[in-house]
């Protein structure tokens, strides 16, 4: 049984692509057959985040236009044998693909994979429409900021109007030290306002930046964010996993870093 999931947010820069890469990697680590589709035609990024930018030959538009077979365009991630990427075209724009074509593409891939994860572009225009057309469920990524949450609220409304019933939330870039001080909205505040189910909360960690510098994912690594992404994957698989205690991890890290600072 294949599940088609769209990862979206409305606002740009909140971590859609990073989350897509990490969820894909996490699921592949659990031996699920996963294909990640970058639907951000004209501004592709998922290939770079995953470190697969040098291996692109064909792309999503080539597949849709029939210039190649699907298998030729899929890039296999050598680190995880069950993980594939279908990159977006860089020299075209969103109008190169229609919602019907995306639906057909997903139908063609469904027999081969356990998960099809669509990385949605920012905004609510055609790129968003294309990505949502094929999806059974949606993951809305947001950060604890007024602008990102406002956009997430709008996106949730649009997804519901589109008939997507299974919508869950990832709250990215949480800083527990700031939440404790009262200078950042808490996970509870955000869920309360948006009224959607929480899929996971990801702490704001340097490890994510470092990993993406290398074109790697944090999922499955020792970092707290890596653990948080693995938990998200387990929840997608239907397991009940308690929320990570981000507070403990951050204060522990803080303690360690201040200890080392003193030494230096």
């Amino acid at each position, binding site marked *: 049984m294949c599940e088609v999931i769209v990862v979206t947010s409305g606002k740009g820069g909140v971590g859609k692509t990073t989350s897509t890469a990490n969820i894909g990697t996490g699921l592949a680590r659990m031996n699920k057959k996963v294909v990640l589709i970058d639907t951000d035609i004209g501004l592709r990024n998922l290939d770079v985040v995953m470190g697969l930018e040098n291996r692109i030959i064909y792309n999503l538009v080539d597949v849709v236009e029939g210039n190649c077979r699907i298998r030729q365009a899929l890039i296999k991630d050598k680190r995880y044998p069950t993980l594939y990427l279908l990159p977006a075209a860089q020299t075209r724009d969103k109008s190169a693909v229609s919602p019907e074509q995306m639906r057909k593409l997903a139908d063609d891939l469904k027999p081969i994979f356990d998960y099809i994860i669509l990385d949605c572009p920012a905004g609510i225009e055609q790129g968003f429409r294309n990505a949502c057309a094929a999806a059974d469920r949606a993951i809305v990524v947001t950060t*604890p*900021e*007024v602008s990102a*949450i*406002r956009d997430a*609220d*709008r996106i949730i409304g649009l997804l*519901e*109007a589109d*008939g997507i019933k299974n919508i869950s939330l990832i709250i990215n870039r949480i800083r527990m030290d*700031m*939440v404790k*001080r*009262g*200078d*950042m*909205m*808490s996970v509870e*505040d955000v869920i309360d*306002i948006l009224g959607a189910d929480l899929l996971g909360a990801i702490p704001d960690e340097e490890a994510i930046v470092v990993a993406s510098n290398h074109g790697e994912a944090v999922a499955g690594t020792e970092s707290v964010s890596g653990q948080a992404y693995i938990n998200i994957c387990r929840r997608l698989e239907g397991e009940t996993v308690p929320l990570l205690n981000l507070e403990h991890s951050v204060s522990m890290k803080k303690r360690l870093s201040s200890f080392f600072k003193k030494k230096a």
Partner: protein
Amino acid sequence: MERIRSLKPKTSGDIARIRLEQTIASDYLECSSEQFQNMQRDILEILSRYINVKATKEIRLNLIQELKQGVPYVKTIQIKGL
């Protein structure tokens, strides 16, 4: 209780939450954030004529809209208790 709460300085997180609630509500009602605040004030004023608003911790207004697909969509707007 209300007085104690109002004496406590609001953190920037509290302010963010209030601004967010107001922005989302005014987006929904398609009115300005100022108009929304006026509406909140007016509703409170009218309610206070009939009920003891001071003793009421929270007042919520449910706007129920029917979507095209026939699914009722409820949007809750907080009038008091933010």
